[in-house]
């Protein structure tokens, strides 16, 4: 698959381009003039205080939130209101939520098979093989027949990651994937994410896990009040942030 990508002419273009993005809720500007480019294979960690617009930004990238002004281009396709086939874009963009959002009435393996079967049109056997392979990858294949409510939070989140990966997305978005977890389960989810990063996946992660950011992030993007205030490589950002706002924020999450 990596080789396939190497000959793809679109490879030269970034995975995601966000230009002058503005998102309003009523009269409130949740995002004001955000610019962000995500290169293929790049891993970005997005951080910032509560309400700074991190979730809103990544939700705009798969058009779960519709932006008001500006441009978003995902894998060469611009997201507009008139976009005919938003679902084909969403197929290429995996998303993992803070609250897992597994489908409770489907077993673990069914959660993973649903979209490949119904959206990608994969044959049953292939969808099953793929689901089992990815569940194995997140080390939860022995729970495949269980239902989400029968799993721990960490297990549920790993299933959610496998479910997203079953669509073979080109980019994965994570919205605070570990903040709803008990501390002892954070590690297993972060390990899965690190492995994914090592496989070369393009990732945008909203997280305050600094260890994770140091280990995998190519770039840390710091947001406040709906704008990107600062960005840089993780070691510089965490050691010596440029802005006062980032300094205050980092002090808060350390303590």
């Amino acid at each position, binding site marked *: 698959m990596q080789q396939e990508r190497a000959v793809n002419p679109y490879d030269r273009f970034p995975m995601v381009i966000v230009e002058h993005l503005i998102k309003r809720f009523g009269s409130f500007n949740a995002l004001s003039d955000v610019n962000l480019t995500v290169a293929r294979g790049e891993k970005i960690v997005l951080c910032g205080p509560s309400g700074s617009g991190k979730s809103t930004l990544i939700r705009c990238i*798969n058009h779960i939130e519709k932006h008001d002004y500006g441009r978003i281009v995902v894998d060469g396709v611009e997201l507009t209101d008139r976009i005919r086939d938003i679902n084909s874009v969403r197929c290429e963009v995996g998303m993992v939520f803070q609250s897992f*959002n597994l489908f*409770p009435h489907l077993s673990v393996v069914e959660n993973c098979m*649903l979209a490949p079967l119904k959206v990608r049109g994969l044959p049953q056997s292939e969808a099953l093989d793929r689901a089992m392979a990815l569940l194995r990858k997140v080390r939860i*294949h022995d729970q495949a027949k269980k239902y989400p409510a029968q799993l721990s939070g960490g297990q549920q989140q790993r299933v959610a990651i496998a479910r997203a990966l079953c669509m073979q997305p080109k980019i994965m978005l994570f919205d605070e994937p570990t903040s709803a977890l008990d501390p002892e389960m954070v590690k297993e989810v972060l390990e899965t994410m690190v492995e994914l990063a090592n496989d070369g996946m393009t990732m945008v992660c909203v997280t305050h896990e600094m260890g994770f950011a140091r280990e995998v992030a190519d770039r840390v993007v710091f947001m406040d009040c709906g704008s990107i205030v600062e960005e840089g490589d993780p070691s510089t950002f965490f050691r010596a942030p440029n802005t006062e706002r980032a300094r205050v924020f980092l002090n808060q999450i350390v303590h």
Partner: protein
Amino acid sequence: MFGVLLEKTMDGQRYIDWLLSGLGWTLALAFFGWWIAFAIGVVVGIGRTVRSSFFGGLARLYVEIFRNIPVLVQMFLWYFVLPELLPSAMGDWIKQIPPPWGSFFPALWCLSLYTAARIAEQVRAGIEALPKGQPEAAAALGLSRYLTYRHIILPQALRLIVPSLTSEVMGIYKNTSVALTIGMMELTAQARQISDATFQTFTAFGAATLIYLTLALIAYQTMMLIDRAVRIPGTAPGREAVGLDIDDSILESPLPGNMEVVK
């Protein structure tokens, strides 16, 4: 006390045969009415939750009209008024439908449409009770609106509303008694007929009451069984974990047999 029910009537039957025939019509109205109501109710209930203001408005209009007019009045509207409103040829044709069908179909139609409006509101409530993350996760996976309703929203919403549907099931079979006003010889009508013929009012209506109570119990137990059968594994019994599924093929075949191989 119920001995009179075994006595012969003028037409050579026994009174209990009258009751049983009435019970048959009551069950037929309730059973077929329920399924028609359920089908319409689910569609209208979905309509109440879609973004389109046209379909939303239409669904709302339906619910408000059929839920807020008394069943008795609706019964009269379908039976007496509708044939007059239609072109005379069609109206005359309807009036000539032989009994009991001339009463049965308007009654069935009336009960179905009324109950559908009530079910629609339950369906809407069930859909709106789902966490927002469910449709969002479905959208993030690329599922269309249709696929999301079909595979994510409806299976969960319908499970959620089984307890409240139980009272709708009981509601429709109780409301079948209104059909006597348009000449349907259902259970209550037969009880009255027996009472008129034998002057044993207490016996006639006592028997009908017992039958209605038994039906209620059966309906309740059946819904409890359905509730248990469709419960999502790992969820506790109670409000948030119950349900009915119109469609048992959520995935056409949930798990192929080769699962064990993978293990």
